[in-house]
């Protein structure tokens, strides 16, 4: 599945399988995703502002130059995410997981990171300014992912 340059603003998706999909220059602002699977997908230059991802799995995905500003990302599985130049600012990431992720120049400014898990992750130039990271997990990664 591949989407390029599409405007999908405000749509709702429930229980959908998007595994292995490609999203390039897609506008997903205001979309609602619930119980969807996006494992091993690729997002490039996508706008996901004020989206709602509830109990979704985005494990093993790659993300480049995406904007998730102002989104509700509760209980999302972002494990093993490889993200660069991506914004999660002003988002609610309660109990979301970035276990084993590689985050390079990613911004979590003014976010709710309560109980968010970064266990085993590799973080470079990641900005957590003004965020609530009470009970978040930042266990040191045993090795940095290449």
């Amino acid at each position, binding site marked *: 599945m591949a989407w390029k340059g599409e405007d999908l603003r405000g749509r709702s998706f429930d229980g*959908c*399988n998007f595994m292995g999909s490609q999203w390039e220059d897609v506008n997903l602002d205001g979309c609602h995703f619930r*119980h969807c699977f996006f494992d*091993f997908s690729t997002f490039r230059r996508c706008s996901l502002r004020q989206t709602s991802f509830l*109990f979704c*799995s985005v*494990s093993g995905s790659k993300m480049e130059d995406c904007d998730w500003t102002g989104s509700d990302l509760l209980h999302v*599985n972002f494990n093993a995410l490889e993200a660069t130049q991506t914004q999660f600012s002003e988002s609610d990431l309660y109990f979301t997981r970035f276990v084993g992720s590689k985050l390079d120049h990613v911004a979590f400014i003014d976010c709710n990171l309560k109980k968010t898990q970064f*266990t085993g992750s590799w973080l470079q130039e990641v900005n957590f300014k003004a965020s609530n990271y009470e009970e978040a997990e930042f266990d040191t990664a045993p090795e940095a992912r290449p």
Partner: protein
Amino acid sequence: MKLVFHYSVENFSNTYVVGPDGGGDALLIDPGVLDVRLLEAIESNGFTIRWVLITRCQPNHVRGLRTLKKVYDAEIYSRQTQVLGFECQLVKPGTHLQLGPFKVDCLCYPEFSHDTVIYKYENWVFCGDLISAGKAGKTGSAYAQANLAQALERRFFSWQEDLLVFPGEGPPTTLRSEKLFNLVRRSAGLEVLDPAAPIGSLPAMEP
């Protein structure tokens, strides 16, 4: 078939209901809480809870059982003969349950706890506390954790990759993701598959 998912804020736990598309007899996994929202979700889908499957006999998995039994006359399956005073059908290792239209495989993991059982229905796995996305369940010691890692390697990660995994806590995951990224495998230095390998077709999860 349809899968209904319910998250309890009080318990930090997930409850799942599986039932036919047009309504009918349904099974419920881990009644941690039976609140108004869950009840509305059950009723709006036309479900009647006939069977309750318990992955672990801990309060956050069973606290809602008393309320549930007041509403539904359901059979309870667990690794104990009694839960909260209710008689249960005892699940033994390797049991295959035929519950109406549902054929459910039951697998026990005494390496994790004596009362843990996970349930597999078609390509959905309800694993309770055994696995949560990216991590294995917590045990009491490094030795027990190593035992659990070995047990998972032999009897969980060896399954087919197209399974969708629904833990008792936290977001869903897939067996493929867990084989590649679960910390218990990475920390054990186990060989992982090529994440760039093509993914087979996976059936959608019904809302």
